[in-house]
């Protein structure tokens, strides 16, 4: 699995994005939601459309040993969904892989 090619970081990606649509504030929002019972769901909104989210989700599923999917949303673009509370994992991973800078991350939830 080569995540290498994901590492190319466009410093102007945010600028392009935020001028594109003002729903994206240049931040990557990591949220948690409760599902039925004790189960939870982690969503990652605001990743640059330059990235191949399918590849990211594949890598994450393997890394965190959880299920995940990419959801297309009319307003928010492609959103990553992972089962369970993966907020800590995904934040670390996104930073480590160089996809997102720490100051771009906004973690929500309890």
């Amino acid at each position, binding site marked *: 699995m080569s995540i290498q090619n994901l590492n190319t970081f466009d410093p102007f990606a945010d600028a392009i994005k935020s001028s594109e649509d003002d729903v994206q504030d240049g931040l990557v929002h990591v*949220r948690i939601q409760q599902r039925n019972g004790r189960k939870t769901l982690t969503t990652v*909104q605001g990743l640059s459309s330059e990235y191949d989210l399918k590849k990211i989700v594949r890598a994450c599923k393997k890394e965190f040993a959880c299920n995940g999917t990419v959801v297309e949303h009319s307003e928010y673009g492609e*959103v990553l969904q992972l089962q369970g509370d993966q907020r800590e994992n995904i934040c670390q991973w996104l930073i480590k892989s160089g996809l997102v800078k720490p100051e771009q991350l906004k973690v929500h*939830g309890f």
Partner: protein
Amino acid sequence: MDEDMIFDPSLKKKKKKKTGFDMDAALAGETGESTSVEAPAETGDVDVPEDDNLDLDNFGKKKKKKKKTFFNLEELENTLPETPPTEEPEQQEDEAVDDLDLNIDFTNARKKKKKKNIDEFVLEDDTKGEDQENADDQHGVWVGSDRDYTYDELLERVFDIMREKNPSMVSGKKQKFIMRPPQVVRIGTKKTSFANFTEICKTLHRQPKHLLDFLLAELGTSGSVDGNSQLIIKGRFQQKQIENVLRRYIKEYVTCHTCRSPDTILQKDTRLFFLQCETCGSRCSVASIKSGFQAVTGKRAAIRAKNV
């Protein structure tokens, strides 16, 4: 709380008086007795550097003093001015503890500390009127030596001057920010009640709607205020989880981003919210509350049925 405030500074004052005459003797001789009395009351005074005895005396930082004498009493007597390197890590440690306090306690630890100092000043002005003497002492700190001043010293100095020149600011800072913790009770298996939601809104001087929007957006769920003015939230949440979110709310929308005073007003200007501070006058925009993406979590069949 108020009793504390009055009680504490008076102790300090006494100490200050003592050390005023001769700080060498004071440091070497009386630390044993005085610290044993005052140590427990101390919460953490960080901003004063430890290499300057005059400073210590002036501001009544007993903790520093205590530590110093504790660790190298003899060294201190011999080589008075140069002791800082040995104590550097200690200070940092203190700072860390302080930060932790800040995070845990709803009442701002840093402010508490400041307030103590303020009280000291106020008290002194009122009772002894030794303003001048005080000022002289202060100047002495800076006149007597040719060393470089540390950032902390300079900071302390500028704050002291500010406090001295703005008594109104001092009194404004005196009000404390005390909030009852949220009362969170489970209702059945799928819902949670936040019983004192309305009360907390009042304490924070914020519209219930605003706090509601924030809570629901952060928790990624739905909910509403019922007839008993309690908030019913869908999903299971524990008290500490709600408290966590509340703390973030306070940090972003209640306390001033510049001076941390809770005496602020949230104004809506066109589409943005601004936090206007009544204490320091600062005004800054705050993040707008957005739920953002919400995943579909209900039973899909039910949703499909609804849509058809």
